[in-house]
Every structure is written in C-alpha cells, then in structure tokens.
C-alpha cells in the first residue's frame, strides 16, 4: 500500500461520484433540512426568553450536532455500501485488481473517498455552526472536540458499509445490511442496554426529601451494563463534549444532558441527592467519562472492517462467494 496508490483510487472514486451529479441536490436538501430544524429549535428557545439567555447558542449547537449525526446515519451508509460489490457487478473491479494497485490501495482509497464525501456533508453545516456561535454561549473547545468525534464516528460508519460491500455479493443486500449495522449501533445498543439492565441486580439508593425525610428505594445496578450503551454514536458524541456537571439548573444543553445521564449510568453513586434546604449532597462532581470506551469500540470496529475489506480484495483468491465469478 502506498499513498500514491490510495490517492489514485480515491481520486477516481470521487470523480465518479461528482460526475453522477446527484450529490449537489443531496447536499442542498441536507442543508435545508438542517436549517429548518435549527430554525425551529431557535423559535422554541425564543419562547423561553431570559431563562436560556446566554446559553442559547450552546443549546442550538448541541441540538444541531445531534441532528447532523441523526441525519448522517441515514445518508452516510449509502456512500460506501455498494463500493466494492458495485464495482464487481459492473465488471471493473477485476481490471483494477490486476494493476499495480494493492488490495490496501483499493480498500483505503475507497474508504477515504467515502469518508471525504461524508465530511463534505458535515462541512456543509458550517454556516449553521456560525449561526449558533453568533447566538452566543458556544464553547470553542466543545466545537473542536465534537467535530473530531463526529468525523471519527462517520468514518466508522463508512468503514462498516465498505466491509459489507466487500463481503456480500449483491449490492442491495449490502445496502440493507449497512443500515442494519448502523441501527444496531444507534438503537440496538439502547435495546441491549435496556434488556441487560432489566436483568441486572438491584441496588439500594437513598434520597432525602425537602422535609428531611430519607427515602430508600432500589434501582438496577447499571455500573456494569453501561458498556452496552457506550458504543452508541449519540452517547459518544454528547459525552465527548466538555463535561459541565454543575450547570444543571436549567440544563437544556442536549449534549451536556446526555453526557451527564450516561455518566450517572456508569457511576450510579455519582448522582447527587438533595438535603432539606434543597442543597445538593453527595454525588461526584466529575464522574468518569463514558465516551473514551465508546469511541474505542467504534474505532476498533472501523479497524476490523477495514482489515476485512483488504482481505476480501486480496488476489489471487481461492474462495469465491457462491454464484460469484471473478470476471
């Protein structure tokens, strides 16, 4: 594998994509949908008035990023899900495999092309980010970290879709399976976490009410099952934003709220109680984060997917998928 080889493949892939012409319309629709959603969010915040003064931009930014990630799970799988088997169906893959390009060149070239296209969609939201910043209250560090994590998560989706396109003979199957893989990450992790938590042992929690009366109840112990929730891209993205555990008064910042919630899932004892004066008692001001684990799982998935893709592109091959010809 050489940088020149990877670049040759990536350039060709991007050129073909750009020529197909539909991407302009797609990016335009993508931008307009997000613009509409962000405008609605801004309207809603406007009606809250002074309650959210000073943090309006931060709330909008968090909401925007969750919407971007949500829409990206619909768009990004399509960028790579037919990359390898589509070329095989069209009869061009084998002619590329007999050139000086290695399996690594082809796999990574296709990966970078798909990832680059995905990042283009993210880049298209830049004007919306500028709007959020203009509203005030956006944390520069949050923008930096969230953008990096977003890129990594979309890269994972591209890698998974690419591997499926290399593993499965039919393009329709790999497209469906790619969406299934992404839904497993987004919704499947939630369901798995829910089921595992239901089966987890109960622990005792004590809460003190305003009138000084202590109340004891039990809840499932999530200190082990949180791992199932960690790979969820929304969890990773939200928790990666700088932790602001103490600004909970009118915590409307969606990233902060999700981050706090999943950290309490990981460390049930970190959640503070309140004493008779309404003062916070106990708890942990800085519970351990969830996102490094989640991001690590995602990156491991991406690395595994790329390794599988390279393997499947290696020639000469012995094994062929049933009913598949080389050429």
């Amino acid at each position: 594998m050489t940088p020149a080889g990877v670049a040759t493949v990536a350039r060709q892939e991007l050129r073909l994509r750009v020529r197909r012409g539909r991407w302009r319309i797609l990016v335009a629709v993508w931008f307009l949908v997000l613009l509409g959603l962000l405008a609605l969010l801004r309207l809603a915040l406007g009606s809250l008035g002074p309650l959210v003064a000073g943090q309006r931009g931060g709330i909008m930014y968090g909401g925007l990023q969750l919407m971007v990630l949500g829409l990206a799970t619909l768009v990004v799988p399509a960028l790579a899900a037919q990359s390898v088997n589509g070329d095989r169906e069209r009869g061009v893959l084998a002619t590329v495999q007999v050139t000086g390009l290695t399996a690594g060149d082809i796999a990574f070239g296709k990966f970078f092309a798909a990832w680059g296209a995905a990042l283009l969609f993210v880049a298209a939201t830049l004007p919306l980010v500028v709007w959020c910043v203009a509203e005030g209250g956006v944390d520069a560090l949050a923008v930096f970290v969230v953008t990096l994590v977003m890129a990594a998560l979309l890269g994972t989706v591209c890698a998974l879709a690419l591997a499926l396109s290399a593993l499965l003979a039919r393009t329709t199957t790999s497209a469906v399976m790619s969406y299934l893989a992404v839904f497993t990450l987004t919704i499947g992790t939630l369901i798995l976490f829910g089921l595992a938590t239901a089966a987890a042992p109960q622990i005792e929690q004590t809460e003190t009410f305003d009138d000084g009366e202590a109340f004891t109840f039990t809840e499932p112990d999530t200190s082990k099952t949180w791992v199932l929730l960690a790979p969820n891209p929304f969890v990773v993205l939200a928790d990666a934003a700088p932790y602001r555990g103490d600004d909970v008064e009118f915590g409307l910042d969606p990233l902060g709220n999700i981050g706090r919630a999943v950290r309490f899932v990981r460390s049930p004892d970190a959640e503070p109680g309140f004493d008779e004066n309404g003062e916070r008692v106990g708890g942990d001001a800085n519970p351990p984060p969830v996102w490094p684990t989640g991001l690590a799982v995602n990156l491991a998935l991406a690395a595994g997917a790329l390794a599988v893709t390279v393997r499947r592109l290696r020639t000469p091959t012995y094994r062929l998928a049933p009913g598949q010809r080389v050429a």
Partner: protein
Amino acid sequence: MTLRPGDAGIAATGVRRSFAGVDAVRGMDVHAAPGEVTGLVGPNGAGKTTLLLVLATLLVPDGGSVRVAGHDPVTEPRAVRARMGWSPDVFGLYEGVTAREYLEFYAAAYGLDAARRRRRAAALLDQARLGEFADRPVGVLSRGQKQRLGLVRALVHEPAVLLLDEPASGLDPRSRVELRELLRELARAGTTVLVSSHVLSDLEELADRVVFVDAGRTVGDHRVAALPRGTAWRPWRIRSLDPAALLAVLDQAGVDHGEPGSGGVDVVLAGDEEAVDLLAMLVAARVPVAAFQPVGGSLEAAFLSLTDQAP
C-alpha cells in the same frame, strides 16, 4: 514448442481448478512463446476464461504449475502484473469518466508517472481510433468502441504478455481486421499474446499456434500452418443450377447430404481427395455445378475433427 519455468511467455502445465464441485479446468497445458500469437480455442464452458483468470493473477488454481513472464502468478502476483495485460470477456468501464481519464486512471494504477500517463493515453486512443471521443464520457460510446477501449486499456503499461478473452466479440469487420493487425504487430515486437476465442475464422488468420481445449482439458496444440488441411473431415457446400440432378447423383453415390437450401447442399467429406473424386463424378454425370467449396476454415475443420472424431 517447450517453455521451461523462468522463460518469458506463458507456461501452464497441468492446471486444475474447480468451483463448488464443478471441475472447470481439469488438466490444461498451455504454452505461449514471445513473438507469437497463440489462440485458445474451445466450446462454451471449456474453461478458457477460468484458465485466463489463473494466468491473470486473479484465481488460485487447485493444482498445476503456472509461469507468466517468468513469474508465478500465485506467489509473485505483483511481478506478473507489472508485465501482463489482461482484458476480460465481459467487462465494464467506468461510465462517468471520459475515455482519456479512463486510460489515465489505469496508467496511474500501473504506476506510470504523469507525463507518461498522458502520452500513453493519447497513443492508445489513437490506436483504438477513439481520438475524437477522447473527451466524451465512456458511457456514451458504442459497444464496439467500448470493446476497443477496454482492449487498449490492457496495453497501458506496455506488457510483455497479453491475455485477451474473446476480444473480437462485438467488433465490426473493420475493427476485427485492425485487432488482428494490432496483435500481429505486438507479436512482432516480441509480446506474448494469448487470445481465447470460439470464432475460428478470426484466429485462423491471426494465430501462429492454437491450443484446443474441451471440458477443462487440452485436447490439441497445433501450429496453424501445419494444421491437417487435406485429410480432415469437413463440410463442403455444392450449388447446382439443377438441384434435383445433383441430389439424384449424391443419392446414387451414397453420399450423406443435408437438406438442400438456397445456398446449396452440404455434404461431409473425409478430405480433399474425396472432394476431388465427388466433383469429377458430378461433372461426368453432367450435373451443372456452379459452386463447390469447403464450409468454414481449416481451423474449424480441425477443431470439429478433434472434438468429435467421426462426424
């Protein structure tokens, strides 16, 4: 014609390959020397494409020894690829790019530098008579133009060994002649050319040698110049101004013949001598013979007599 491993050209001995229980290739010996065009001839499903995939570093054979341009396609695919060009029987082209971009992409894929890429692409477009289509999208080219483009693609890196799977299908007569001239020219320059085909009339004028394969095996290996021309069973077509008289004489002489058609009557004869005798008999019987000619080329005749000995 013998090639030892290490020599240039193609040396495939005892190649076997099966797919999920189907023996596609079960012992093929194919040798091709530099400077020659070698034809790979056989009926549908004989295993020609499978053999070429093995030679083209795409498929691992179950057994046998293979050398292409002096290297083993299984253990040294990169060395083989640098010296080998391959054009598959059914292939697609990147429809969205222009013909020039298409060739330049493959030139880059073979590691040619930018200046050489441009030069090769321009030269090959000329060679494929696609100069005026150079900057049009590949998708709008006609089938034959696509075929020619796909063919010259295999030449971008000036390979020493050229593997072509059914290159003539879909080409008009002029393109066929040009293909023939192109391949002859490459062979003259020292290239090893292996062409699979079942269009025998094409190969007859093109190939120096033909290897016959059937049901996964090599069944014959001949120099075209030395093919048995005078002695093979082959069909002949006779046309007479008086078809009834012709049939009467044929029946009387006990010569098997087909149904008379507008082109004449087909008979199968054991060789030139039998043809001479029959013609003499017809003339002696005052049958007005207007045409008396062999059907198909001598390659076809040789192939038919090789695959089923007694027609």
